[in-house]
């Protein structure tokens, strides 16, 4: 029933983490990142010899290396999320995301700025915590009715964020370090980039109950900590067509931070969702003032609604007015 999408995880997380800063005080690191922004080309990717199976690295090491990458924390980004049916844009959201890594975990807040009727609705994603399953927790705040902060049950982690094809799992910045078993399935070339193919399977009944897929293949760049795509299979990988597929259509580097600038998640039924980066900033010290707690969601919602979604998007593209 649910369709998790760990892969987009990495695709989206790349967007989340990568972002070139615009508003707010630029930090030296952010400035360096902006200066270094560039697009990977085929020529750059070529020339590297194909490693033999014996030379494949350990999957755990690849995962650890990826999870330990520079997230640009604390950072923010604004994306447009378009939901398409048979190629036609049916719905468009503007989402502001803030994230912060602490010693214990990584937390992200997704605040809806557009459309107006949904402005102020927001999610809090807590990952890499000591929670079960998959070490993640999701809270949702809706400004309607009782204005309660609701916790999304783990069984719904593979449901669509805002009804899109991206799921809560896809929003993660890191691969789950618990509840999944990983293996290196080989090497390949994706988007003209040499990649490691990492195969993931839910490792226990609790995770299998969450994931609608049985096997996922993530395509992790061999040159940089960025996931370029993912295929989700109902059975063994490659046995049938994937039930969902994520592709990163643009990759950029900002200093130590890599990210995708456009990602598409599509399914078998002709539905697709496209995330496009509009603006971003990272290593933003002013975000340290946010606590990234579920108690904070209501206040954050009110500030976004007070500021007006259109104003935020049209002015400097930054996060002015969002911070307390």
């Amino acid at each position, binding site marked *: *029933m649910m*369709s998790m999408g760990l892969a987009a995880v990495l695709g989206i997380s790349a967007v989340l983490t990568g972002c070139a800063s615009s508003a707010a005080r630029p930090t030296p690191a952010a400035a360096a990142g902006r200066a270094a922004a560039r697009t990977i080309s085929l020529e750059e990717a070529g020339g590297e010899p194909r490693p033999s199976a014996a030379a494949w690295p350990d999957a755990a090491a690849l995962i650890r290396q990826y999870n330990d990458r520079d997230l640009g924390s604390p950072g923010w980004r604004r994306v447009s999320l378009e*939901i*398409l*049916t048979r190629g036609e844009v*049916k*719905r468009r959201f503007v989402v502001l995301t803030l994230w912060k890594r602490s010693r214990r975990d990584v937390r992200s807040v997704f605040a809806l700025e557009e*459309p107006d*009727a*949904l402005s102020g*609705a927001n999610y809090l994603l807590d990952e890499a915590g000591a929670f079960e399953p998959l070490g993640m927790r999701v809270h*949702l705040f*809706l*400004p*309607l*009715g*009782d204005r*309660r*902060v*609701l*916790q*999304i*049950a783990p*069984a*719904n982690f593979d*449901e*669509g*964020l*805002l*009804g899109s094809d991206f799921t809560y799992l896809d929003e993660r910045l890191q691969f789950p370090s618990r509840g999944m078993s990983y293996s290196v399935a080989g090497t390949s070339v994706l988007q003209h980039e040499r990649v490691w193919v990492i195969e993931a399977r839910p490792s226990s009944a609790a995770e299998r109950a969450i994931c*609608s897929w049985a096997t996922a293949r993530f395509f992790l760049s061999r040159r940089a900590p960025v996931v370029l795509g993912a295929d989700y299979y109902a059975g063994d990988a490659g046995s049938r067509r994937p039930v969902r597929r994520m592709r990163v259509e643009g990759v950029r580097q900002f200093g130590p931070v890599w990210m995708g600038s456009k990602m598409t998640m599509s399914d078998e*039924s002709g*539905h697709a969702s496209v995330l496009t980066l509009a603006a971003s900033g990272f290593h933003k010290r002013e975000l340290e003032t946010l606590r990234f707690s579920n108690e904070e969601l209501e206040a954050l919602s009110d500030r976004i609604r007070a500021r007006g979604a259109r104003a935020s998007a049209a002015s400097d593209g930054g996060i002015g007015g969002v911070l307390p």
Partner: protein
Amino acid sequence: MGGDGWRRGLRRREVIRLEAAEISSGAGPYNMRIPGCGFEPARLGRAIVGQSCRRPRLILCAAAAITAAAALFVPRVTLQLDGRSLVPAGDPSLAESDSASRRFELRDTVLLGVADEAHGIYSPAALGTIYRIGRELQRTRGIVPDSVISILTAPRVRLSGEVIETTPLGGSKGALDEAAARRIRREAEASVWNGMLVARDGRAAAIAAEVEPEADRAALLANFREIARRETLAGHTVYVSGAAAAQAVLGNSAARDLLRELPLVILALGGVLMLAFRHPAPAIISLSEILMSVLWTAGLMGLTGQSIFVTTLVLPVILVAVGVSDDVYALCHCFEGLSHSTGPVRDIVDKEFRAVARPIGVTAASTIIGLLSMALTGLEPLRVFGIFGSLAIAFSTLFTFTLVPAMTVLLVAPARAAGRGARGFLSGAAGALTRPSLSGPRRVLAIGIAGVLIAAAAAFRITVDDSWTKNLPPDSDVARGDASLNRLLAGTTRLELMVDSGRPNGILEPRMMQAASLLTTAVSRLPFVGAVHSIYDSILDVNAALHGQAYGAFRERVVAGAVHLGPAALDQTVLLISSVKRAALRKEIDDDRQRTRITVFIRSADYNRLAEVLHTVAAAGGGIARLGGRIVPFGDGWISYTTVRLLVRGQVWSIGVALLTDLVLLSLLLKSPRLGLIAIAPVAFSVLIVFAALAAARVPLGIANSMFAGIAIGIGLDFSIHLTSAYRQHAAARLPSRESLARAIAGTGPAILTSAGAIAFGFSALCASDVLPNVQLALMVCLSLIVCAVSTRVFVPSLVLAGRSA
């Protein structure tokens, strides 16, 4: 000449010789030249007959070789079981509904029902049965696993403390004990699913699943039956229903029918022909050529990638029965010639077949027109039947002038004089039928007009209806299951309504919600509507959960105005639903929130019930229209309704066009519009009588049995064509009307009765069918042919004589 005098004065042999001489010399009424090119089709026909008689073995080998080649393509003919395939793709009447079906990813469904009428289904044992069936369906190949839904697995948005979750109604884990059963009952009765997935009185529950479009329905049905059998043995009655199951049953029955009835019809026809001719050769010859023409047609269907439909799977059986008609006329003449002539068989056969080339050409044309008229109905099965049926007749006619004379030359020589006894009897019977018409034509005509008026009055009361389940063998498990589930649950037929607000997010405007609620309330008040479900029910369900209330109670508060849901609340509720059950949401509302789907469950749906629901929708949907929205019906119920509408319109058109075309054709050939009208009258009368009989028996006209009209017009017209043209020939030889008629009747009588008897007997083999419409079709064709044969003998002479004296 009156009374028996006409018979005594008649020298049959002379009549036949006269006809043959006139026809072969081109002096008869059939003489036709294609203007501008000097080409005479009849001359070509005569040349073909000549060659066939001279080189019979070559003809036989060539026909066998082409038949073998055609047989190779027969396996490529596919069987269409999908309900939507009944109406051609792109048909304007279904264009919008197709689009709606794609938008909401609609598929055929299967329904398994668990019933315990004594104790109800809220017991651990019954719930266990439901659970096991659901699990098995999920694992069944061809079933969309995520689509399987029952009272145990129906998603329910629930607030547990501060955790919002979509748990199955039956809970996510734990044993199904008494306490769990009581909890499930409590929650199910308070849920939006009450009345849809479980009977309100708790006596039955349904497990519904969607079927992959390309799934093997026969294999699926076998699987469902096995599940039902096993679980019924375990203690609870399990029913199987749904369009996918009905299609599979119908497919199996029709295929079984084909295998069983084809030999039966061959045996029946063979028997009648042997009896009529007192010789095995006509049966062997005629059936060989018909089977070859059927194989050619099936091969051509395979070659062109055509599908055959479950409602027209009996096409070969029908073609075999129909195809015998021309052969009977030709062989009657040929045997008559053989019994009275001397000389080489080849020459006699050549001469006799040349003599009948024109009338048989005309009757073949009228049969083709009758069958082709079915293509005007706009229904795919009838279109395919009409086009390929007429092709088969064209092949059969070609064989009548090639293979049949060739085989006659090879097979008939040793017993050329046989068969006179039977034909003598038939001739006597034909004469007895006609006697009153010759002695008192006006009296007979008055009786006929009275009959027409009575039949017309009765025929106006005919009903039209069709559905998968009503076509099933009445004793089939699926038919019985469907009846039981219609009685116990909300109904097995779904009529879907797409509400298009006309603008993005329009569905979530409170005024639109109010207008749609008025619509669903009006529809749900209809006594045969079991349940109505829409996105607004889901919205209320989630809000009820957020408010910690039962769905039913919360709904009442909203309806009473105690709770107001504003635009933001509606939008955010849908956002919440999309956050916890996205896949289900896409089945209810489109991504831009412009369109939504309302599902109406109808018990024992038929055309009238569907029409009443649609009428109510039109009346109660005014609010939606005033807000700039519109309603588009789609789904199984709409296809069924549209099919019947197309059938009605098509029947009127096809019968009218066939009769008119035949009238023009006959008027030209007989060089008299009056004679053309007279020739058409018996077949029109016979069709009217059958409609009247259907109305009297309260049998609705459906897709399968409606084919009778085309067949009846196609074959029935042959009788009067032969009679009127023979009359025309004699009249052209300046014989008095009465004598011309007497001679024509004597000359054509045996052939008409043999043909009518053989075809009717052949069709009677269809009475052994498991598929009710096939039995009806057989009876209707038999009735129509008998009425047509008799009325041709009775009314044609009356009309001719009455017209003359007037």
